């Protein structure tokens, strides 16, 4: 039964034994270091960050790059970044979520209501807010999977539904106002509050000021008292997401689900579960941003998170995510968000009109997409 050498057979008899000797294909060039670096999806964002930094070093007031200035940049960057990293994971998984921004407002309302209306303790209110957000994310995901509609449409619907619900809900909860106050007071103080608002690392900063490493006021307190907790959350989330994406089974499944859902399914990847999980993750990221910002402001309003969905997606794209899914990075979205923060805050340190920000936004998006397409052709060897 081992005779395969028929006259028409285009196949040579194979010597028995497990190994055929591979021959080096002379048509393959060695992969250069440059190509290896180019394969990293976050390269574009990193290059962009360097360029933007150089631009502001050149044009902006020197106070922009002091410790206080950097905290000023990183605070909005971190709030956007938490959304952008989640959006990046979802995009790599092959879906969009346009409802993130509205979800921030809605989660803010839910969180505020749990604190002020039902009077729950902070920890319980936070947990309940995450549960509500996760359920809504799950609903988004299930709708996309079951109807097989593009997630663009389904979540666009939720962009309006959640924004509308936030408005209606706020008026109902406050008796006609679109702003809910007194949340900060209801939250009280304590360890939990410290994790979600205020500054972290105050001890080390005092120590640094005492040893004249960082600036201090004449009375000895440092000019920058610590790192806003949102920045800590942002950095930790970026590290966690990168680790998940690059080193875990879940990460491989995310790439596979976005790259080709059918091939992934055929290989036993639970694509639907992965996608639903990602929708829940983006919703929870929105809830986290809502909790962080609402606790800092002490109030919430219906415009919270307005247009953040677009900024998050743009940051993810700048970070190297392909709109078609299956490719991208979390650390790229991290850099993308910092570029955002740097430009939006940085323009106020220059003599430029800060409304140039929007122009920059569009231009950056266009450049990023062109660059990403070029990179993808490099990676896959497409011609």
């Amino acid at each position: 039964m081992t005779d395969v050498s028929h006259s028409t057979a285009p196949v040579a008899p194979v010597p028995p034994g497990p190994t055929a000797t591979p021959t080096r294909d002379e048509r393959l060039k060695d992969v250069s270091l440059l190509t290896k670096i180019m394969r990293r999806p976050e390269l574009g964002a990193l290059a962009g960050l360097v360029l933007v930094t150089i631009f502001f070093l050149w044009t902006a007031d020197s106070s922009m790059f002091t410790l206080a200035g950097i905290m000023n940049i990183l605070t909005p960057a971190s709030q956007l970044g938490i959304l952008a990293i989640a959006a990046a994971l979802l995009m790599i998984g092959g879906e969009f979520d346009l409802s993130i921004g509205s979800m921030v407002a809605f989660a803010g309302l839910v969180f505020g209501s749990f604190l002020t209306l039902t009077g729950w303790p902070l920890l319980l209110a936070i947990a309940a807010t995450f549960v509500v957000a996760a359920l809504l994310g799950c609903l988004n995901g299930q709708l996309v999977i079951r109807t097989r509609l593009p997630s663009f449409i389904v979540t666009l619907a939720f962009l309006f539904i959640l924004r509308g619900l936030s408005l209606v809900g706020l008026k109902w909860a406050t008796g006609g106002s679109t702003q809910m106050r007194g949340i900060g007071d209801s939250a009280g103080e304590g360890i939990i509050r410290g994790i979600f608002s205020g500054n972290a690392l105050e001890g080390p900063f005092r120590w640094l000021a005492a040893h004249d490493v960082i600036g201090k006021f004449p009375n000895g307190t440092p000019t920058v008292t610590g790192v806003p907790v949102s920045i800590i959350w942002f950095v930790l989330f970026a590290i966690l997401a990168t680790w998940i994406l690059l080193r875990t089974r879940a990460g491989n499944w995310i790439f596979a689900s976005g790259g080709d859902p059918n091939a992934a399914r055929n290989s036993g990847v639970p694509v639907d579960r992965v996608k639903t999980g990602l929708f829940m993750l983006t919703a929870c990221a929105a809830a986290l941003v809502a909790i962080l910002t609402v606790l800092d402001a002490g109030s919430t309003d219906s415009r919270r998170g307005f247009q953040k969905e677009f900024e998050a997606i743009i940051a993810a794209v700048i970070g190297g995510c392909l709109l078609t899914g299956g490719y991208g990075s979390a650390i790229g979205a991290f850099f993308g968000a910092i570029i955002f923060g740097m430009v939006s805050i940085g323009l106020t340190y220059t003599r430029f009109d800060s409304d140039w920000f929007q122009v920059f936004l569009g231009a950056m998006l266009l450049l990023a997409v062109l660059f990403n397409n070029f990179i993808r052709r490099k990676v896959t060897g497409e011609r």
Partner: protein
Amino acid sequence: MTSTAPLIDIRNVVKHFGSVIALSGVSLTVGRGEVMCLLGDNGAGKSTLIKTLAGVHRPTSGEFLVDGQHVAFTSPRDALDAGIATVYQDLAMIPLMSVTRNFFMGREPRKGVWPLRFIDFDHCNEVTREEMHRIGIDVRDPNQAVGTLSGGERQCVAIARAVYFGAKVLILDEPTSALGVAQTSMVLKYIHQVRQKGLGVIFITHNVRHAYAVGDRFTVLNRGRTLGTFTKSEIQIDELQNLMAGGKELQSLSVELGGMV
């Protein structure tokens, strides 16, 4: 072929899609170390049959035995767990992902303690490089994207993956239809190698030459029915061709074209 029960034994499998009768009583067996070629023109029911074997569709009626045991798959995962691996023509690999990530997709080996369990990529890369080496593909960097491999190489990676993960039966859905001559021979050579390991192979094709090159037995499907199963000694290549195409018409056309079809 000393085993008592064939690896796969299907009897009178029927599959209806609403009012369409896709399969109307197909029987087929595959033994160990055997390449069973499934031949048929477009619309013969080849795809429906393999999707039924792969657990994508459930048969409307009929018997399905694996290793002599009755089975009823509800998902592709069930079929995989039973040792039936399907390599689809175009849906085998994800071009943007690395060779290693593709190779271990859905079956990633992990180490570490929950929740810090992670994929053992050093091990994965090593296995991938080794397995590729074994089938004669020189993957210098297992982290390169599958998109950089040729079509034949991708098919071979998909087959190697199935073999590595302990498939007993390989279903190959037209693995050579989109390939050039050299790449086809690479895939056929590998099919032969797989057979020598004692796996059963169901090789779906509509290219009789490719089938005859590696096949032990040939089952011809037409309009949802089996026209018959033949061993290689029972049938000549041109008879097979005629049978598959529905006989006379092709023969006369073939004469017109100077016997080149």
